[in-house]
C-alpha cells in the first residue's frame, strides 16, 4: 500500500508518537492541573512541555500564548467568533477551506461584511487586489498559508503588511504548513495562527492549537467556550489568564503528548530536511504526471512555491473512478473530490467534479512516487 493522502492526515505516525500516547496514559494519567497529586502534576508537565516546544518552534517567546484546541477548525472558530462583531469587515482569499468559509458565512448572517478576493485560476494571489479590498473598517484578514487543493503557498508576509497598514489583524490557517516548512510567526508578521496536530506535525487527530503572537492584545478575543480551568475556582466567571481563558474543560492529554512527540520527531529530523524531501517528491510527481496523456495538473508547478500537494484530473475519466481504481487495483490511496474546499475548486475551475489529490508525506519514498505514476498511467490507458 502507498499512502498519498498526507494532506488529509499524515500516516503512518512515527512510533514515538504512539509510545508517548500510551506512556502518558499509563504513567501520568492524572487530570492536568485539577488536582495536586503526583499523577496530576506529571500530566501538567507533559502539557506544559508540549506548549513550550510549540512556542519555540513558531518563535513565540511566551509559551502561555499557545492555546490547545481540538484541531485547526476549532482554533479558527475561536478567533472568528471571539473577535468579530456586527459591522466588522473581513477579507479572505478565494481558496480558503470550509473551516474558514463556513463560520464566516454564518457570521455574515449576523452582520459581518465579507470580501473574498479571487485568486488566479492557477491558485496564486494578486496582492494589489487584496490591498484594494482592505480598508479602515477591516478588522481581520484570514488566509490559508497553503491551499489544501493545489499546495500553492500564499504570500503571508506581504498580506501581513497590508493587514497592519489597515489596522487589521492577520489570522493564518497553517493546517497544511505547520511541520512541513519553517514558520517564524513574528518574522512573517502573523498575529494569530491556527494549526492542526494530525498532519505534518505528525501528531494524532483531535489536537491542534492557536498561536497568539507576543504583541497581540488578548482582551479583544472572547473565549469560544467557558468552564472549569482548575484555576481561580472561587470565581464563577471565566478567568482572563492565558492559556486558561481559552482552555476550558479537561485537556486532550494523550493528544498533547502525541503532538509533543510528533513535533520532537520533526525537530530531530529537521524541518528544512523535511521540506527538501517533500519538494523532491512533489517534483517527481509533477514530472511523472506531466508525461501522461490527458492529464491536467492544477496549481503552480514550481515546488518552491507550494507544499507537497498535487491535484490533477484526466480528460474523459471521473475522479472517483480514478481514486477507486488506484485504491482497489494498485493499493494507492489518494483523495478525490472537493477536499472540503469548494471555493478553491471554483477558483481553479475544477468545480463541482473536483480533482484527484496526491499528497506524499515524510515516510513516502521516490520509489513510491514512481510506482504511483505507473499505476496512474495504467488507469488512464484502460
Amino acid at each position, binding site marked *: 500500500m502507498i499512502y498519498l493522502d498526507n494532506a488529509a492526515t499524515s500516516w503512518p505516525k512515527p512510533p514515538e508518537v504512539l509510545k508517548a500516547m500510551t506512556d502518558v496514559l499509563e504513567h501520568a494519567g492524572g487530570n492536568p*492541573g485539577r488536582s495536586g497529586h503526583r499523577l496530576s502534576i506529571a500530566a501538567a508537565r507533559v502539557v506544559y512541555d508540549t506548549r513550550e516546544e510549540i512556542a519555540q518552534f513558531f518563535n513565540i517567546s511566551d509559551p502561555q500564548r499557545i492555546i490547545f484546541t481540538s484541531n485547526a477548525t476549532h482554533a479558527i472558530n475561536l478567533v472568528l467568533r471571539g473577535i468579530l462583531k456586527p459591522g466588522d469587515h473581513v477579507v479572505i482569499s478565494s481558496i480558503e477551506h470550509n473551516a474558514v468559509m463556513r463560520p464566516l458565512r454564518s457570521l455574515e448572517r449576523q452582520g459581518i461584511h465579507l470580501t473574498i478576493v479571487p485568486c488566479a485560476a492557477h491558485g496564486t494571489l494578486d496582492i494589489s487586489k487584496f490591498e484594494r479590498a482592505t480598508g479602515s473598517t477591516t478588522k481581520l484578514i484570514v488566509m490559508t498559508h497553503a491551499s489544501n487543493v493545489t499546495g500553492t503557498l500564499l504570500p503571508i508576509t506581504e498580506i501581513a503588511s497590508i493587514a497592519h497598514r489597515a489596522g487589521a489583524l492577520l489570522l493564518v490557517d497553517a493546517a497544511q504548513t505547520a511541520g512541513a516548512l519553517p514558520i517564524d510567526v513574528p518574522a512573517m508578521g502573523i498575529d494569530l495562527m491556527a494549526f492542526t496536530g494530525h498532519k505534518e506535525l505528525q501528531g494524532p487527530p483531535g489536537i491542534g492549537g492557536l498561536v497568539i503572537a507576543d504583541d497581540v492584545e488578548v482582551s479583544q478575543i472572547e473565549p469560544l467556550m467557558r468552564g472549569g480551568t482548575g484555576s481561580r*475556582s472561587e470565581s464563577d466567571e471565566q478567568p482572563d489568564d492565558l492559556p486558561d481563558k481559552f482552555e476550558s474543560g479537561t485537556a486532550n492529554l494523550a493528544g498533547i503528548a502525541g503532538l509533543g512527540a510528533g513535533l520532537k520527531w520533526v525537530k530531530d529530523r529537521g524541518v528544512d530536511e523535511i521540506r527538501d524531501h517533500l519538494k523532491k517528491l512533489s517534483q517527481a510527481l509533477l514530472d511523472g504526471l506531466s508525461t501522461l496523456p490527458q492529464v491536467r495538473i492544477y496549481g503552480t508547478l514550481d515546488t518552491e512555491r507550494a507544499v507537497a500537494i498535487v491535484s490533477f484530473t484526466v480528460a474523459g475519466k471521473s475522479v472517483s473512478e480514478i481514486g477507486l481504481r488506484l485504491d482497489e487495483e494498485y493499493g494507492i490511496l489518494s483523495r478525490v473530490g472537493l477536499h472540503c474546499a469548494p471555493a478553491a475548486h471554483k477558483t481553479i475551475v475544477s468545480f463541482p467534479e473536483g480533482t484527484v489529490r496526491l499528497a506524499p508525506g515524510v515516510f513516502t519514498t521516490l520509489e513510491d512516487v514512481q510506482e504511483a505514476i505507473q499505476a496512474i498511467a495504467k488507469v488512464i490507458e484502460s
Partner: protein
Amino acid sequence: MTQYGVVLFYTTSSVMQAEKLLKTEGCSIKLVPTPRQFSSDCGIALRFDWDCREKIKLVLDDAKIEFDAVYFLDKQ
C-alpha cells in the same frame, strides 16, 4: 529544620513554567497541592526553601511569570 514558603499562581501552566525555570536556577523546590489555608482553589502550588524567596521572586519577575502571592509555611 528547613523552613518553607509557597508561591501560588493563577494558572497551572504558570506553575509548570516556573518549576522548569527555577530548577535550572538551582533552587530547591517541589510542587504540592495548594495548602487549604491560602486558597479555596484546587490545584498545584510551588513550595520552596524560605531562604530562596528573594531569588524566586527575582526569577519569576524576570521571566514575567505572574504569581498570586508568596506565603510563609509555618507547618508542613
